[in-house]
């Protein structure tokens, strides 16, 4: 085995009472691609942020190229040849590519010479690694894949020998992801060391040489990729057999509850995000919408639930039309039996500084059961909050506790309890298990199936393909704002993956 490019010895890191990393040991050989896998919240990003100098470890040692190195800031990391591509790109959106590349590495006080120097350097990197991008393009006008390329260029421009990529494929289509992997292999051939953080097993198997598994802040195992299996890694990740299939009987679809036709939505910049989407959801079925994040699913949900206005199209709820032009009040839709579990529970679904009981009525705060004239009926609100807490096993069971003090899974249960307990006819759910622990995922999935079996129409949007496949009775795939295909629950991952990448159905069939 080659000498170690990076060695982490006994890294510990706590945020207040939360221990994000405990006693981590890791060795990454030079010139390899090393995967770090784990669930959301396992501590992968924290560990890499420590390596990049973004946080300081509470204790432990870092060795780079065999030498003990104190990394106190990103500057120190850059100086020893560590570069990082963050999950959320650290780019200035209204700057050009070249301005972003030189930021922090300008060299001189005046820009003229540094820009000229960067231009020729970019040209060289472009040739050497196939990293093509127009140096004068403005970032916000580039597609996501190219923005990521700019991040890689930034690191290489600073002379990075060790490249950390944090969940690089989350926002990419499979085709873009394949291109990224080609680039990474090329970098490896040139002798660079790559650390790839992901929670996707497929990527680990496809590209890494070695893989380390993290669980709840600890490093549970390191394996040579060639000598492990998906099943073993999955078990190491979650600590027990993954329940990929949720127990459920066959669907008994009834009347059409939600009928969407020709729905078109633009974002604030006037870009069409949803482009003439049509589909329906019947009582007693779950319709899942799959797709890579950012292909219009979020805007679709927001338009249907009345949060965002649509520029064209029709929505029928129980056969009667909904005004989608933006004049509809989400409150009116609630009265008509449409409940919505939004994707972003921190800023949309909950008011974090509120007490739990206050959040348990959000959106239903003008229902007769909770008010007396203009006044809130506080005993009634507390009583209903307590019953939701009991039914959904929300912990700690204290309706007066501030919502910010609940864990992610329990916060999501607060939202679900509120929306489901109103006995809606139609339930719209976005990313129901994002940032939620395994136990709560199972609970939430069972609840969604129970809703279906109770004859409700459920529309589910998730970027987790497994979740879509195990819950849905019908699967729609969105790409670039359009529904590009519909499949049954038995569709294979490969089939859906092609659709998500925008490969036309005909091509896919060939």
């Amino acid at each position, binding site marked *: 085995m080659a000498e170690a490019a990076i060695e982490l010895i006994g890294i510990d890191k706590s945020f207040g009472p939360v221990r994000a990393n405990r006693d981590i040991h890791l060795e990454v050989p030079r010139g390899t691609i090393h995967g770090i896998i784990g669930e959301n919240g396992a501590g992968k990003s924290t560990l890499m942020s420590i390596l990049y100098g973004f946080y300081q470890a509470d204790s432990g040692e870092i060795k780079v190229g065999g030498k003990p190195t104190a990394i106190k800031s990103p500057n120190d990391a850059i100086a020893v040849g560590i570069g990082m591509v963050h999950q959320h790109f650290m780019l200035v959106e209204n700057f050009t590519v070249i301005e972003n590349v030189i930021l922090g590495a300008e060299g001189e006080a005046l820009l003229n010479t540094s820009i000229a120097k960067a231009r020729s350097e970019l040209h060289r990197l472009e040739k050497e690694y196939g990293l093509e991008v127009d140096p004068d393009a403005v970032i916000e006008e580039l597609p996501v894949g190219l923005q990521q390329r700019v991040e890689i260029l930034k690191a290489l421009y600073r002379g990075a020998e060790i490249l950390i990529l944090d969940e690089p494929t989350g926002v990419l289509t499979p085709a873009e992801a394949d291109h990224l992997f080609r680039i990474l292999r090329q970098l490896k051939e040139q002798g660079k060391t790559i650390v790839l953080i992901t929670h996707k097993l497929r990527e680990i198997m496809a590209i890494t040489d070695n893989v380390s598994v993290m669980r709840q802040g600890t490093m549970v195992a390191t394996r040579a990729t060639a000598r492990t299996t998906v099943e073993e890694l999955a078990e190491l990740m979650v600590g027990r057999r993954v329940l990929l299939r949720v127990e459920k009987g066959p669907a008994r679809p009834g009347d059409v509850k939600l009928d969407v036709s020709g729905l078109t939505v633009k974002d604030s910049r006037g870009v069409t995000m949803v482009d003439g989407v049509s589909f329906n959801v019947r009582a007693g079925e779950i319709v899942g919408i799959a797709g890579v994040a950012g292909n219009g699913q979020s805007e679709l949900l927001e338009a249907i*639930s009345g949060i965002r206005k649509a520029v064209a199209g029709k929505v029928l709820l129980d056969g009667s039309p909904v005004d989608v032009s933006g004049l509809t009040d989400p409150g009116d839709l609630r009265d008509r039996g449409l409940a919505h579990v939004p994707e972003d529970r921190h800023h949309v679904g909950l008011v974090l500084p*509120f007490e739990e009981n206050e959040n348990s009525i959000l959106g239903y*705060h003008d229902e007769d059961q909770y008010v007396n004239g203009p006044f809130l009926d506080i005993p009634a609100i507390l009583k209903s909050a307590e019953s939701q807490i009991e039914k959904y096993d929300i912990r700690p069971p204290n309706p007066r506790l501030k919502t910010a*003090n609940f864990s992610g899974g329990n916060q999501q249960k607060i939202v679900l309890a509120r929306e489901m307990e109103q006995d809606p006819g139609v339930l719209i759910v976005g990313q129901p298990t994002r940032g939620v622990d395994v136990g709560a995922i199972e609970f939430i999935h069972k609840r969604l199936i129970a809703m279906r079996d109770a004859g409700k129409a459920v529309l589910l949007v998730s970027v987790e393909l497994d979740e879509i496949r195990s819950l849905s009775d019908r699967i729609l795939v969105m790409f670039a704002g359009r529904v590009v295909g519909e499949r049954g629950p038995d569709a294979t991952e490969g089939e859906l993956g092609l659709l998500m990448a925008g490969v036309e159905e005909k091509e896919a069939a060939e």
Partner: protein
Amino acid sequence: MSTPYAKLPRWVDYGLIPAINLAVAFFVAGLVVMLVGENPLSAAVILVDGAFGGGQNIAYTLFYATNFIFTGLAVAVAFHGGLFNIGGEGQAYIAGLGVAIVALSLDSVFPWWINFPIAILASAAVGAFWAFIPAYLQAKRGSHIVITTIMFNFIAASTMVYMLVDVLKPAGSMAPQTRTFLDGAHLPKLNWLLEAVGLSVRSAPLNITFLLALVMAFLVWLLIWRTKLGYEIRTFGYSPKAARYAGIREARIIIVTMVISGALAGMMALNPIMGDQHRVALDFVTGAGFVGIAVALMGRSHPAGIVPAAILFGMLYQGGAELAFEMPNISRDMIVIIQGLVILFAGALEHMFRPWVQTVFATLAPRAAGVPATSGEGA
């Protein structure tokens, strides 16, 4: 979502830290007193004695506090809706017009107990109107409410100068003010209230508006924490996105919140005009609208905090007047400095001493500092 600070016991959060912030603000104010060559401690003694040494002084202190309760509540209501109403000064000033119209036209017609409710409505309506325009412009045109309310303070000042110089000034008079009201627009004094507890009051302007201010403080509490509207205002204030999701209309909340805020600021005009001067003169607000910002921050936007904070500022105001007699280097403008320091230390530097307090607590009681908030009453 991470909470940037570890939990501390409630009494530390709501008692000790604000107290430290205030103490520092007053300490720095003491340095200013030293800078002008006076002794801050004797200044403080004169101040407190001037504010509370006798029924007369207490009555004056409460008279000034009345103004600050109104403007403090006005700023606080807007804070709950996530809005910063810097326009309380202008709203109170322009509301003087509402009071003037009622008093000048009805003082010979009705007794005070009929004119008072009418004047309350008039002052509230005019103040609300002055807040409505910036609110409307923020809700519908996206102009920043902080900037617009600042501009409206200047516009209100110009308008009032024009009204008092060119319109309301009685013919033949030189002073830019209205005529003196008749008895029908004089509000009854509250001196009997202090005399009832054995204090003697010669003549002080404390009047029934003080009771109105207390009623308003109660109503604001009721509104914010016990009504549907208050729930919606708070939801919007914490998270506009969550409010949209909950079917709370943004434009409506911005406008309603600002209208309530403006109405509260407007009612402040009653106190000096109908309670004391019995006419509308230039600059009768004397900065009370801005003091409201300090009062709201100090009272943490809760009426139970605002009333004592307003009394504290009333004390500074009344005591400051006494102080100016004793120490010629100090004028009432001292209150502007103190108000600025309170806004700085209780507002912008709110968390400056927190890490320090946390360290102290972690050393003294290691368990209290680290526990999750389930046991909020720990230590």
